[in-house]
């Protein structure tokens, strides 16, 4: 169980972001694809226990279901325990959404914040 080094994480993920610009006016920029690996920051709420390690570097081609499974196993939850995951305390992504696509739309400071709770806290 090692503590994550935040500085390193941020640096490594930012190397893949670049913007292509052209002289074509009105169509200035092309969006960056999601980096191969992204940082997910898990924050607990309600009766859900906090993780010792809160930040994980996950592959961006994972589905959100993979993220749910990962978190459940980290929390050592039984299959009957309920767990709700929210992005930015706003919505619960569908299990088939891609982590990379969520990152492109909802990340802050190059990390995706996922709030989790044993109750639908922001439902």
């Amino acid at each position, binding site marked *: 169980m090692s503590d*994550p080094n935040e500085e390193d994480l941020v640096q490594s993920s930012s190397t893949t972001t670049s913007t292509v610009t052209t002289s074509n006016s*009105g169509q200035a920029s*092309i*969006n960056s694809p999601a980096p191969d690996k992204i940082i997910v920051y898990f924050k607990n709420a309600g009766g859900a226990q906090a993780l010792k390690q809160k930040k994980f570097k996950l*592959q961006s*081609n994972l589905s959100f279901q993979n993220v749910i499974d990962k978190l459940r196993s980290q929390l050592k939850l039984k299959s009957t325990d309920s767990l709700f995951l929210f992005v930015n305390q706003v919505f619960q992504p569908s299990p*088939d*959404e*891609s982590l990379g696509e969520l990152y492109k*739309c909802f990340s802050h400071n190059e990390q995706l914040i996922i709030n989790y709770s044993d109750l639908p806290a922001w439902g």
Partner: protein
Amino acid sequence: MSFFDEDIKRSIWEGKIPIIFTLSPDDLTSHLPPAPFALMAARNTYFPLITNIVKDYFSSSTLVLHEMWLEYKGIPLKWHVPIGVLFDTLVSPGATMVGGTEQQATYWNITVHFQSYPERLLMKCLNEESVKTYYRNVLKEAYYIKHGDINKINNLNINQSNELWDGLRLHDYDKFWSINKLFYNNNNNNSNSSSSNNNNAGGGYKYIPIRIIYHYKPPIQELIPSIDENGQELTLENLFYRIPFATLSNLFTNTSTSTTSPTISPTSSSSSLISIHQAQEQLHQQQQQSGFLNILQYLKSTPSVKYKIQGIEPPLDSTLSWLSEYFSHPDNFLYIVLSDSSFSIQSILNSLNSSNSQQSTSNITSP
């Protein structure tokens, strides 16, 4: 806003697809197979909201009444994707090319199953409440992209929330739009203003909630502003320009880099391994040979690739804010389906099986 816009919005809402449901022979337990069941399905609804009548109809012909699910040519239909988006992805001319012959779709032939729910491919849908919860969350996601908060949704009172849901559930245009209009800026205030130089350019949205569906994969989502750096409204062409081609090809790389052989489901044929590799190879070749920078280049230089929004191909110079307002689904996302007619339905099926098996075995790495 032009004179016809309200009519367009209503026409989009009224868009329907003729479907013929047939009971799977595997589930048949009566002597005679029941006649197929025909239905006109609204494009903008979800299957669980309209298929109770189908379930009731077939229930006398089968003894295995487990969870119902639907299948088209071996592909389990995702209940949480709007019906019109599923149709444009899987059935629209182009996607129906099988063995080189195009089958002109006059209706959509769907097989109904009552056993062996494909849990690995489809989310569970316990009841109508599951659809409601799902819908509410996608709506919040879209609204959050548009406005940067979800205050308006959170501030709906219980009657308004019910009105919105009932409008969708019962396919009641007036009911639904009486609430849904609150989520759109131009419907809210001076809707009669036709001047283009008002300070509300681009509808006043932060970003336009857009989902691009390609090859029956999970949606591609990009942050696309409604106006560009010069204050010009972004068009559909600008959107395709801004999305890197790699975004499409990345959907495939997770399977092509796999060294383990994909699990083949019982429904797929033995030739599936070959065709998925062909499909991936094709895409990689296209990318490498032509070096597409973005989706616009891919579209323009590949005649077999088409885009569809609500079943039609709006002009490339349509503005995104206008499309968002009039062509979005009830979840407030604008769904753009990209289809390549040189890809067969079989390759969709195979990549579905492959990516699924890949995902379930992916390791999550921690630092």
